[in-house]
């Protein structure tokens, strides 16, 4: 899922300062799971902003809504009426959701309330870790399902650097060494021979490095 965290309230207050009527719009999929932008976070942020404005003697009207996904027009349409009643949208979606909202409502300011951070997993309650860089050229089959491009601080693809200690990265001792995990996993799978095959330099042209990407599924295009 896409992992993000809510911006500091001081920054959000600055962003919404020019407006007196705002819609705080949550997104009920990825950012809900990481406690950044679901219906609970919408309610808390709305309440905190109202309290902050009352404290400062400033008027604000806040409407709250959460839709299933802000990155799909089918769901975005559900917010149209609420959008029309307000001067701006404070979106708690990821960056894709904010931009999809902005595309749909051309004359409405759409403001980000979340810093989109990475693609990752929920490792344990309250802990999210980055697992995928979206490089467009997945080699997880070779590395036993552990991505060295994302999870090795040095992005090494032909073996470990030798600097890890007790299975932890020398760059950040709180991070697992990706190569330690790869070797443990390949041993368990009986696939250590995978590491005998030289991995050529990664083709980064499929990644964001070559500019924004598009994916077309012709069978779904009318």
């Amino acid at each position, binding site marked *: 899922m896409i992992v993000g965290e809510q911006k*500091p309230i001081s920054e959000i207050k600055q962003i919404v300062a020019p407006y007196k009527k705002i819609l705080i719009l949550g997104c009920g999929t990825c950012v809900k799971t990481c406690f950044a932008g679901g219906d609970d976070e919408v*309610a*808390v942020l709305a309440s*905190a902003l*109202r*309290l902050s404005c009352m404290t400062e003697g400033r008027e604000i009207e806040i409407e*709250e809504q959460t839709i299933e996904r802000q990155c799909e027009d089918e769901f975005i349409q559900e917010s149209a009426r609420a959008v029309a009643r307000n001067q701006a949208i404070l979106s708690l979606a990821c960056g894709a959701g904010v931009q999809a909202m902005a595309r749909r409502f051309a004359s409405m300011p759409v403001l980000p309330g979340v810093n989109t951070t990475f693609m990752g997993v929920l490792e344990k309650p309250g802990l999210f870790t980055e697992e995928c860089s979206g490089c467009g050229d997945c080699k997880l089959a070779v590395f036993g399902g552990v991505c060295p491009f994302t999870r090795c601080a040095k992005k090494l693809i032909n073996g470990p650097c030798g600097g890890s200690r007790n299975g932890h990265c020398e760059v950040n001792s709180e991070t697992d060494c990706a190569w330690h995990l790869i070797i443990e996993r390949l041993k368990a799978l009986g696939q250590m021979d995978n590491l005998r095959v030289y991995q050529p330099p990664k083709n980064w042209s499929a990644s964001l490095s070559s500019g924004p990407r598009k994916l077309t599924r012709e069978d779904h295009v009318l």
Partner: protein
Amino acid sequence: MGQRSKSKVTIFHCINVFADGDALLVDANESAALNFVKLPCSSMVKDVFLLRAFEAGADVVAVLVCAEGACRYVEGNLRAKKRVGWVKALLDEIGLDGRRLALFNVTAGDTLTAVKFIREAHSLAAALGPSPAAGGYRPETVKV
């Protein structure tokens, strides 16, 4: 809005600490208006409930939870403690003063200690004065 004569204290409490706040022997001359909110377990005290208590005009919000290690649901009071800590930081950030929110551990059924903590919350409300946000809940706010 007119000058309020009584400070307002909202008390969220686990029903395992005491069942009915209104039945507690709080001094009839207490200057604070009390508002008790019962919870089946203190872990049910969501952050938005605490914030909305302030929106509804509370000067101080107190959360009375079971003693650590004695939660009937194992860790409900620990979750409440973390949540209260998080909201206190948020209150500081929005200029409302995190001291207006307090958590107290009380042994189940120890009403004397519960009353003592409620009085502490009164004193806190008197010391901190009226909440700068005590304008009351804004009815025009819409939840879709």
